[in-house]
């Protein structure tokens, strides 16, 4: 048998063996047994020295073809085996992907903070500053400077916790406005502020009353601020808090620190204004008080009320949260029952 025939036979044999191989390792053994230094193809080629010189190139070419074919074949087979092995491996690694994941603990923001930050962010975006102040205040700043002198009948509207005759727990965040008014430099620009914080009133705690609650008051003082600006600002706030479709209405009211003073109602977000249990059948829900800052308040803080004017408003995040989420007892906000707090984990 000539070398050419031998090569063909060896190749045929190798192809059969490779075809039978079931592992990469087996395949490697086959490769070595044919293509290795001591492999069959190598040993066949040792017989080339006995071939006539003019035949040698032909045999050399044939030898290369056989070697290439076998190499390609083996490598394809190897790839396939590896792929199958991997598939088997991955199949074995299958898990129940519906099992629960590992615990991640994340605390939730208190619902009142959520409401307050939402309002803060709205006003920050409109160029307001957030200004905080002391929770314990003087009678002077809490009452007198917001146009509530001693023995003013309107003091009855706010029952007060006194510490001494001159020191009290603030009943609203208005003292911050008085303090800011006297320090603001109007040559640097208008005053646009909101003041969020805790406030206190002498009230017996029940489902709708709390001796401690929160308030956010806002104030804008500049030249030519109008009541229409107040209306537009509050409309924006109402839509932000209760939805784009909301409308507001202003009703005359009385606050010593504003004149004119109004109460602001928002169209009921539950029934849309047709009347339901949330709005007590009126279609409207009272959400805040507002007005044009009283000239006395400006003058007492050394601001020229003939040049500057502005508006102020105040709202209660506790009340907003109760309305918005249907919370029926204000004490829930201060018990910190995790079963309550965790209900407000979801954003928005």
């Amino acid at each position, binding site marked *: 048998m000539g070398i050419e025939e031998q090569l063909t036979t060896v190749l045929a044999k190798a192809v059969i063996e490779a075809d039978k191989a079931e592992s990469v390792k087996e395949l490697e053994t086959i490769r070595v047994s044919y293509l290795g230094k001591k492999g069959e193809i190598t040993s066949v080629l040792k017989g080339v020295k006995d071939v006539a010189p003019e035949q040698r190139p032909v045999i050399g070419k044939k030898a290369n073809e056989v070697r290439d074919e076998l190499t390609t074949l083996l490598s394809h087979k190897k790839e396939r085996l590896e792929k199958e092995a991997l598939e088997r491996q991955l199949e074995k690694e299958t898990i129940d992907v519906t099992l*629960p994941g590992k615990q991640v*603990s*994340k*605390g*939730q*923001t*208190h619902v009142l*903070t959520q409401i307050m930050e939402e309002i803060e962010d709205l006003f920050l975006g*409109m*160029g*307001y*500053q*957030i200004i*905080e102040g*002391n*929770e*314990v205040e003087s009678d002077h700043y809490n009452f007198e400077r917001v146009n509530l002198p001693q*023995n*003013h*009948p*309107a003091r009855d509207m706010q029952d007060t916790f006194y*510490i001494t005759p*001159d020191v009290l*727990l603030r009943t609203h965040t208005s003292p911050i406005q008085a303090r800011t008014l006297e320090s603001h430099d109007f040559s640097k*620009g*208008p005053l*646009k502020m909101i003041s969020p914080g*805790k406030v*206190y009133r*002498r009230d017996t705690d029940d489902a709708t009353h709390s*001796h*401690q609650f929160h308030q956010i008051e806002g104030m804008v003082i500049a*030249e*030519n*601020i109008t*009541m*229409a*600006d107040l*209306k*537009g*600002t509050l409309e*924006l706030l109402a839509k932000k808090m209760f939805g784009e479709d909301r409308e507001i*209405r*202003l*009703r*005359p009211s*009385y606050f010593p620190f504003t*004149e*004119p003073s*109004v109460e602001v109602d928002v169209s009921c977000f539950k029934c849309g204004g047709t009347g339901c249990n949330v709005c007590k059948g009126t279609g409207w829900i009272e959400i805040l008080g507002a007005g*044009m800052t*009283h*000239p006395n308040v400006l003058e007492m803080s050394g601001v020229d009320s003939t040049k500057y*004017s502005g508006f102020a408003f105040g709202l209660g995040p506790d009340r907003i949260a109760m309305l918005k989420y249907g919370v029926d007892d204000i004490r829930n*906000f*201060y018990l*910190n*029952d*995790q079963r309550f*707090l965790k209900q407000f984990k979801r954003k928005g």
Partner: protein
Amino acid sequence: MKVSYNWLSESLDLSAVTPGELAEQITLTGIEVDGVTEPATELSNIVVGHVLEAERMEESDHLNITTVNVGLDEAVQIVCGAPNVKAGQKVVVALPGARLANGLKIKKSKLRGVVSNGMICSLEELGFSDSVIPKNAEDGIYVLPENAETGTDALPYVGLADAFIELDITPNRADALSMRGVAFEAGAILSQKPEFPGVNLIEDSSNTIEDFIKVSVENTEDNSIYKMRVIKDLVVTESPLWLQKKLMHAGIRPIDAIVDVTNYIMLEYGQPLHAFDYDTLNSKEIQVRRAKDSETLVTLDGQTRHLNQDNLVITNGTIPVALAGVMGGENTHVTAETKTVALESAVFESSLIRKTAQSLNLRSESSSRFEKGLNKATVQQALDHAAALIASLGQGQVVTGTAQVESEQPVYQTVTTSVDKINRTLGTDLTVSDLDSIFERLGFDSEVTAEQVNVTVPPRRWDITIEADIIEEVARIHGYSKLPSTLPHNESLPGELTYAQQITRFTRHYMESCGLGQAISYALTTTEKAKAFAHSATAPVELDWPMSEEHKALRQSLISGLLDNVQYNVARQSKNVALFEIGRVFEQTESTLPKETSHVAGVMTGAVVENSWQEKEVTVDYFAVKGIVEEWFDTLGVSDSIRFVPSKEHPDMHPGRTADVFWNDELIGMIGQLHPLMAQARDLNDTVLFELNLDPFITNEHDTIRFKSIPKYPGTSRDIAFVVEESVLHQDILKTMHAAGGKWLRSIRLFDLYQGENIENGKKSLAYTLSYLNPDATLKEDEVNTDFNQVKEALAEKYSADIR
């Protein structure tokens, strides 16, 4: 103020507006309406009955069998339990099928075997409150006047065919605490001028007032107007029905004609009056003055009042007979025997009345009107009206003349503004004629030109004194719904969070990301809890007049509140609790106001990782919480200046597991495990907590971060393990190693701590990795070895460390 629609229609034409519509308009233009009630909508089949016979039922000690003509062909038999039922009376009868107040339905029934075809009604059954029913009708049926028409609807007779608008009147609108004030307000809304009948006063010319009384006022600043009339030869009677029903529906109990008239006039004009029994004054003199210290007066309610110089009193020239504006005296009040009445109509200084009413806790319809001010133009008119009514109801005579001190005349104040100012304030485009018509509706005289607006405000609107008040009147009558909506368009400063606000928000987000939920607790607590866990040695700030022991003192620490919250949750089957709070604590200082500091505190109890199919339970321990605190410091960039110092000084904390936290040399808080006894008392498992002062971190803005280039050269590390006394603190070892570590030592990490087998009792084995890096070159072996040996030596020298 409860306003009767029928009473209001005496002065206005309300035919075109329903009570509901009127209420809506009042709310939108002037005064908040709390509600509208129309009692007739709940009542039906109630007629006037004429009692023909009434006999006591034999089998009963209180039932009567009556025969009543109810306007049908035949009289009906009704069993009635009222003691005051008598033949001949006109009464209110609920026929079978009738509905009464509170949904009660009347059916034909049998009582003790006797058929009853309906019910004779008491006022209470018709829906009147106990507190307004006349004394003589309290225990029985209400008797109608003889001329009531049998068989007709009974509701108009008792004023129930009416609507009542409940006004919530703010302190500035005290002018609406009277029917006349409300009529002017409603008139402005409806563009009508209210009309009031004149007073028909006939004076008896046989005497003049000087024969009876003269009045004087010690200080006209306390009492600017004091007027008195005398009505003589009276018989005190019950009031007629028209008067009784007006009072009852306004929430006032009818007493007798004299008292009722004073109340009626107060409701009509807003002018409180007081009637004295003239004969019991025992003098022909009235003097108004401040009370003397230690003077007393027994008031109408039988209480002895101890007076002082802050109280204004009416005296008979010698002793007090009334507490001015607040309450009359017991000895001089009108009784059934009264023959002559001295009737007072006055203006007292409001803050004086307020103080007296407050200090004696005596708030009345009268005092609240004096406090809020009244219409000085109708002091005389109200007095004349009342005198004429009392005389006519009691068949007496009004003595000619008024005894008076009148130091003040009603003021018609002119307020000046401009069309431009009004429009600039409201954002409107109102014209001269718009404004003219608004002032016309309000009943204010005005001169409106393009340049100037002059408005003359009548004394009935004493709340209006400045430009802003006029603008408010314009705004509300024009209608807030017509205001445009705009936004302030001035130039603006940037709106941004302050550094303190940023850090506070960051801290909140950070704590939440560590698994702690945000709590908000009460700042007012018990004195004991206010003090607990606090650094402060001073007593907590306490309320002057707390409502309860529970909320008496301002907290000095956030921990007590958080522990209450944790305990509350654990008691409700929530074993794993992690809460934090950011809030103020309060400390007394030399200055008037206490010092307020922002703190952040957290409490954790139970598991931080719960047992699950994959993970083993991990319960909270000191180091779990310390890790949270350390990373917070690291993020704030202050780790290097923070020290944890073991402390046994906190009585409520575990003495071996508590540290005070210092920032540089300043004590800023503590961290540790709650004392096991405290935990036990609250039914808690191991509970770890911390509290830190936020102020140092929110008031000190830090340097900007400077970028350091990423090292180009590899670093190297050395491990060291050694045994030291167990009392040696990790923090001190770190300090020593850093001090001795040489210039390439970058960081030190504790990777093992061991006590037990093979380690001598009272000692511990520690193992650290020290990392070295030279940013500018590859470190040489021997450089590192030299530095590392320095560390070994320092440890050996300082702590006798046995290096392994």
